[in-house]
């Protein structure tokens, strides 16, 4: 599906508030620029000297052991946490200024089983949840009946895009983790963002769902030229889709293509301890001697090993 066909407005009346931007309206310059960025949390410096430029349509994974500041990077891009050094520019402005053009999927958390709200309503909140007032029913003619029908149509469109139409009308608390995650991706996609920030979106999913959701995100990234930044603790489900890997480690950071960054010598240099990277016959990467495992965090598999 191309960005253009997604843009077709059901009412035949283009509405800038809900219709996704066409490709030519995508930002020309970089979506994100970080210059010598450094951040502290709780008085502890997490990372520093980070230089990163992300272009429209780029699929970026943020990898690294726990507590190294992966989610913090997302918070910096959202403008929720200031840098202590350096500069961050998001969508050609200071961070936090254009958050309505960012789709954000926090680290989840599944919905409470007793939450009696439809998946469709959750998706819709991504489109107009920040606006004051009350949602009027779709059939109500005045005021703004056309815009309301366009909103309803857009919700339907993103639900179809993520393949959630079969369960979008059921209470979201009754759905499985994978179904909820698809609806949340639809929520993030609904306002046609220029940038998607996904914090461990594959974490709660089983393996087939991980592959399917990863492929879905990659497809959206390519077809609509949305820049995607995904925090992940297992690179394998997204490895074949990635353009860039940002590897954060306590001793520094490495940025480059997956095959450049996820190598024995690079990780050995980054962690200061011997690390070996093996490629399995199916192309999956296996990291051996990962420092996180040495520190006794074996219960949390940072890398899926066969």
């Amino acid at each position, binding site marked *: 599906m191309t960005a253009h066909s997604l843009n077709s407005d059901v009412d035949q009346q283009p509405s800038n508030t809900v219709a996704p931007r066409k490709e030519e309206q995508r930002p020309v310059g970089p979506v994100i620029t970080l210059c010598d960025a450094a951040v502290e949390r709780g008085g502890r410096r997490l990372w520093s000297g980070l230089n990163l430029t992300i272009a429209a349509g780029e699929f970026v994974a943020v990898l690294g052991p726990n507590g190294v500041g992966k989610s913090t990077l997302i918070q910096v891009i959202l403008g929720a946490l200031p840098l202590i050094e350096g500069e961050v520019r998001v969508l050609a402005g200071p961070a936090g200024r254009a958050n309505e053009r960012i789709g*954000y999927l926090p680290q989840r958390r599944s919905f409470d089983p007793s939450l009696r709200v*439809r998946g469709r309503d959750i998706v819709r909140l991504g489109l107009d949840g920040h606006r004051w007032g009350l949602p009027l029913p779709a059939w109500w003619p005045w005021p703004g009946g056309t815009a309301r029908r366009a909103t309803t149509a857009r919700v339907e469109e993103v639900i179809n895009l993520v393949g959630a139409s079969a369960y979008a009308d059921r209470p979201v608390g009754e759905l499985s983790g994978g179904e909820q995650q698809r609806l949340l991706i639809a929520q993030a996609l609904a306002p046609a963002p220029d940038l998607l920030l996904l914090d461990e979106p594959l974490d709660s999913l089983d393996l087939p769902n991980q592959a399917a959701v990863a492929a879905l995100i990659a497809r959206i990234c390519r077809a609509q030229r949305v820049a995607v930044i995904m925090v992940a603790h297992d690179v394998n489900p997204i490895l074949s889709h990635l353009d860039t890997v940002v590897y954060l480690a306590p001793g520094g950071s490495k940025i480059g293509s997956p095959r450049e960054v996820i190598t024995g010598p690079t990780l050995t240099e980054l962690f200061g301890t011997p690390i070996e990277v093996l490629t399995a016959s199916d192309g999956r990467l296996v990291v051996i001697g990962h420092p996180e495992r040495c520190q006794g965090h074996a219960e949390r598999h940072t890398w899926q090993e066969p």
Partner: protein
Amino acid sequence: MIFAASPSWNPIIDLQEMWSFPFMVNAFRAGTIVAVLAGVMGWFMVLRRQSFAGHTLSLIGFPGAAGAVLIGVAASYGYFAFCLAGALVIAALPRAGPGGYSEESAVTGTVQSFALACGFLFVALYKGFLNGINALLFGNFLGISTGQVTLLGVVAALSLAALAVIGRPLAFASIDPDVATARNVPVRALSVAFLVLLGAATAEASQITGTLLVFALLVMPAATAQALTARPGRALALTVTIGLLVTWLGLSVAYYTPFPVGFFVTSFAFAGYVAAQGVRHTRSRWRAGTTEVSPTPTWTAP
């Protein structure tokens, strides 16, 4: 009931008889206002899972009402003053995590007990007030003045107007606080505003059902509606409808019997809730049966 009236079982004649007494007209007016406000606020309270805050507010209202009677003003003012002040105090308490009140349950429990004790003290100090404690705890519709009805109406109108302005972002912040924060929704301010509105609704509901039975109008209609439908618009409309029905029924039955109105409103609301849960379970069993026949299509990677 003091009038020892018995129903004719003709609704029109019975209504005419009840409404020939000004206090009964005021009771129906007040009950209607309260049912609408408490129903709408209750829907948000159930959505936000802040029933405990609602319960605390109602107990804080009790010493307010008892104190107001003690110093010789209408109980309404005491309910409103204490519930709104209590809402601001709860809002000012440090929160453990997003949406979570469980961490402060010890603090709130302490405050609840103290509020009940103060209320009892005030009732005891006001010596000529034998029936008072029952009325404050379990509801009383006698002696609602036209002025009080006006006060209830004004507060309800202001609360509903405020809710109409903040409704959608409030729902967003309740369901998904992290994403709402990222979209520049003022989650913290909305939480404070909601507690103040909840304080107003609790103060209103207390005046019909009494302190201990506010959930009859605040939780039960909303919980019943949410069991029946997951569509927010329908659920809100259903909540208000159920609230109105149980209030009108409760007032009518209480008029002909010697028992407090709070008991009847609560019993009818409870019966509705049980019935709705039955419908929901039957439905989900039926759905489980059909999904086995036609499994939901799974999305496959291209």
